[in-house]
């Protein structure tokens, strides 16, 4: 199972803070972040827009990750807009 978190504007736009996806549902064993994005984009235009926006950031297990990052069962993936703290 992979957990996928959404923050801030994305959390509001998608109406969810966290989804859990069973490995069986993903169809492949070791997906990349890009492949996870493609899979989630099937959920609708809004998902495709948020996930593929140029400035969407991704973290895997709380470390910043790029699209080529390979995922494993149990990983925590997060998608979020540029940060605005401080």
């Amino acid at each position, binding site marked *: 199972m992979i957990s996928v978190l959404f*923050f801030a504007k994305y959390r509001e736009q998608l109406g969810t803070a966290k989804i859990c996806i069973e490995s069986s549902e993903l169809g492949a064993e070791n997906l990349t972040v890009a492949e996870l994005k493609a899979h989630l984009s099937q959920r609708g235009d809004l998902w495709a827009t948020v996930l593929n926006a140029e400035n969407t950031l991704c*973290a895997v297990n*709380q470390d910043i990750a790029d699209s080529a990052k390979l995922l494993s069962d149990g990983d925590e993936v*997060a998608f*979020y807009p540029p*940060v*605005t*703290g*401080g």
Partner: protein
Amino acid sequence: MHSLVQVSADDFDVGAECDALRAHSRRSGAIAQFVGVMRDSNQGDDVLTMELEHYPGMTERRISEIIERAAARWPLFAATVIHRVGVLLPQDQIVFVGVSAGHRHDAFQACEFIMDFLKTEAPFWKKERTPSGERWVDARDTDQQALARWQLEL
């Protein structure tokens, strides 16, 4: 080096944090500090309240990692970073960065370095409530540009 990272809804006491840095710095002498304060306006609109969301766990990890990078670059005695989350009002304190070092220039540099990277890497997001409604604050190009300095300067 002693370091402290705290992310919480609670306000912080700048005097107490400075005292704590001082206690870790018998041989240091120089403490540089930054306090970020909530403004009462942004982009021409009054801001009534601001809500800070973050990514619990990752926030603390990224801040600790930024402090480690600063400590690798300048000889530091202690560093403290406190960031508030939740609902804030104008003039509330948002963030504290305090650094003690042997030389004041190192303390200033490390303090500003930590702030600049916190601004662009730590997963916090601000939502403002204005008289005309709520809006998420957009990231600013100037914060990305501020990072360029740290590639050029020593």
